[in-house]
């Protein structure tokens, strides 16, 4: 199981939730259908069980 980042909606700014996902091929993942998700708490752009295409984002060598 990998971890991918799903954008959160209705937060007013950029925010993502790390979620468990299974890699199907190349950059295609399916979000774990059993991933804990409470729509009353936060709204994911893609809910558990959705098949998504992921993209990589940069990291730098500076401390964070």
């Amino acid at each position, binding site marked *: 199981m990998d971890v991918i980042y799903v954008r*959160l909606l209705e937060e007013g700014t*950029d*925010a993502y939730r*790390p979620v468990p996902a299974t890699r199907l091929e190349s950059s295609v993942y399916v979000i774990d259908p059993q991933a804990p998700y409470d729509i009353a708490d936060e709204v994911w752009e893609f809910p558990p069980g959705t098949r998504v295409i992921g993209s990589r984002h940069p990291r730098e060598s*500076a*401390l*964070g």
Partner: protein
Amino acid sequence: MPPGTITLGTSQIRHGNDGDIDQLDSLLRYCIEAMRAIGIDQWDDIYPARSTLLCDIQSGALYVATAPDQTIVGSFALDDQQEPEYSRVQWTIQKARVAVVHRLMVHPNCQRSGIARHLMQFAENRASELDYGAIRLDAFIANPAAVRLYTSLGYQAAGIVIFRKGPFQCFEKAL
């Protein structure tokens, strides 16, 4: 009660001191472990380090929240040290003196009890007392609780910087 100390229901906030370092180091490890358990890879063995916390203590920047039994349940650092990456952010609030909040943490067993909010309100009051006109800080964008805390406290997103662990949202608030 010494200056810069307030009581918040069941917890008190005060300056950190050298005698706190073991508890702070332990608190940091608990926080890292709890974040990793939910996939938030924000901090690790490299940063923040015990030495980082010691520097915060020795520079007078570190504050701790303690439970009635004096156990440290949270901490943060407040100073004027802006990361070099901040120079590329389009800040909208320009003040002569800007404070920066770093390394806010709350023990996992005490989260969702308002301690982080109290620590931030304390930071704002303390920064005002020290004649700062604004606060800047950053939050890992894959740490929704942190992002939500700052937006709920009225912080405005100013831009994203990329650190070693990925993208961090920069926030600012006028005091």
